[in-house]
């Protein structure tokens, strides 16, 4: 059997016995700077806009909802089932479809919607990154199939960077089958290294910090 063969070859190459515990691994390197919330927001906005994403800091629930309404114009949107979007009144905006729990149904809606609206569990301030954890409240495809992605993140969930993310969430797999980090709009430079946005994922990313 290939499994036992390969493992046996690995062991004999390394001079190890089956089941032998390894020595201690080098300690994980986690260094967390502690900027204050305003600095986190400033850095996040700056990083995301540097990648041609749009960031908006909403001072109230109304402002956040207005941003979504303005972006939506008369188009169609699909929104995730996140309670956060419910609280903001996003899921009931005209033109927004939400409340899908069936994969095929959701997929069909995502494939035709002009805008996908999700929450974001966290944001990373130093790189302008969104962290999306898949759950019954957040599907994978809403932030992927529509050409425009709008995400809402609570200001207290802006982490300083990767180190803080993996400190807060050392075992993402314990919680979800899919944790996605999104850093700006989908892009490619495969033809003559010319930067083009919106290849397979959304070409426009909007983030509202609430």
């Amino acid at each position, binding site marked *: 059997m*290939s499994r036992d*063969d*390969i*493992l046996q*070859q*690995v*062991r*004999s*190459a*390394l001079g190890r016995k*089956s089941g*032998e515990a*390894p*020595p201690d*691994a*080098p300690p*994980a*390197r*986690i*260094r967390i700077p502690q900027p204050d919330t305003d600095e986190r927001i400033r850095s996040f906005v700056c*990083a995301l806009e540097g990648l041609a994403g749009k960031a908006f800091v909403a001072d109230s629930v109304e402002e956040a909802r207005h941003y979504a309404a303005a972006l939506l114009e008369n188009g169609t949107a699909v929104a995730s*089932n996140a309670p956060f979007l419910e609280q903001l009144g996003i899921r009931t905006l005209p033109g927004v479809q939400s409340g899908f729990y069936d*994969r095929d149904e*959701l*997929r069909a809606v995502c*494939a035709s919607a002009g805008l996908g609206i999700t929450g974001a569990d966290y944001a990373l301030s*130093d*790189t302008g*990154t969104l962290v999306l954890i*898949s*759950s*019954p409240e957040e599907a994978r*495809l809403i932030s992927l199939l529509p050409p425009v992605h709008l995400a809402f993140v609570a200001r207290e969930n802006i982490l300083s960077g*990767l180190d803080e993310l*993996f400190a807060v969430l*050392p*075992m*993402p*797999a314990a919680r*979800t*089958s*899919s*944790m*996605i*980090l*999104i*850093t700006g709009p*989908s*892009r*490619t*430079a*495969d*033809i*003559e*290294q*010319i930067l*083009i946005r*919106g*290849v*397979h994922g959304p070409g426009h990313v909007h983030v509202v910090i609430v």
Partner: protein
Amino acid sequence: MTSLPEANIERTLADANLQLAIYASTGRLMDKRKTAVSAELLPDYQELRTQANAVKKHALDNLDFYLEQFETNVQNVGGHVVYCRDGTEVADFVLKLAKERGAGLLVKSKSMTTEEIDLNERLEHHGLHAVETDLGEYILQLAEERPYHIVAPALHKTRYDVADIFTSKLGVEREIVPENQTRIAREVLREKFLAADIGLTGANFLVADSGAVVLVENEGNARLTSSAPKIHIAVAGIEKIIPRAQDLAVFLKLLGRSATGQHLTVYTSFLSGPRRNGEIDGPDEFYVVLLDNGRTRLLADNEKRQSLYCIRCGACLNICPVYRKIGGHNYPWVYSGPIGAIITPQYQGIGKNPWLPYASSLCGACAEVCPVKIDIPKLLLDLRSEVTATHPKDQKSRIERMSFRVWSWLMTKPKLFEMAGMAASTALANGCGWLRNVPAPLNIGPLRAWISQRDLPVPPPKSFRQLWRTRPNK
């Protein structure tokens, strides 16, 4: 056994457009990397490299342990791990699964590991259509070519080449604007994503403590490949293991920056198992194929084991003076550049391409930019020793051996060495100067081949020894 593909290399060198494309693209990637790892933007860059090296070393030194831990954790989240010795076993597994599930279409995101085993051809041969979805890979699949570069596979193609390929293969109207070309690909491939039964990806990292596959990309095609179809298969070399999710805080910072100068690539997917109870979308089945294909062969040698630390960022290609001249297709296998020169002979056996470890000037730039600190020049030298040990009867190497014997004899006679040096420097300073103008009687055979591409500067008026003798504070 293959030999140096001289005719092809000459063709590459003579193709001005190609030379420009390689030079400009690698140069741009190199500049972006340099900025991204600069002291202002990443003050702890060297510490990160040291940590990445230490973690990779630890993972590979105890690989069997972490493979088993990974396997257990994948199973705990409802996924399956399949070990394969070679490409045939991988193809057999995928074909069998496809047959059982009645799958006819497979979408693929960029994976060097599957390129390595010609997986597409194998599947196609048995009637399973595999569609590449990374834009560069898609262009190359249509053109029936292999990747030119680990990170930028279609680096050698211009927009006009792409226009020709799309027109002839997709039957679309000729389109030369890259933005519109990208839109064409998006539309064609979007249909494939939604129709595919199986999504097949590679893996940038396998996380042992989580049973997770990590995918790093910019386009979104890897996300679609791993999330839209009902079956997700990730094919990865066994060396891709890292012990902990927390190690990603180090590796993700290095990978994007070293590859394209991005602080993080647009998408990083951390995937463990099929969709969980209640999750709305995602695959129902999740398989990780762990491929050997020659990797265990390198593990035994303590020194050469570090070849397996590679995270495929491509930085060593971009900075390599040899890659930047001869490009990607003159290397005999899918892995090109300095990393290709060390892993190809080790995966495939040194006897197959004995010239490969010599495709380097040993300038050391590759080792300097390597994010996991692989000592590539040292490994090239080790491999050269192996070649000399296994091919001692080589004609060229006899001349070379003789030259070095003369050299070492001369080096042990200081007086004689100095006289020879003075004679040479007088000859070069007085008129000859340019090495390629050496007198005809000397300009023959291997010597001519050597000096036709090289030159020496005019020597200084005084040698080091002379300066040393007359130094003021003796």
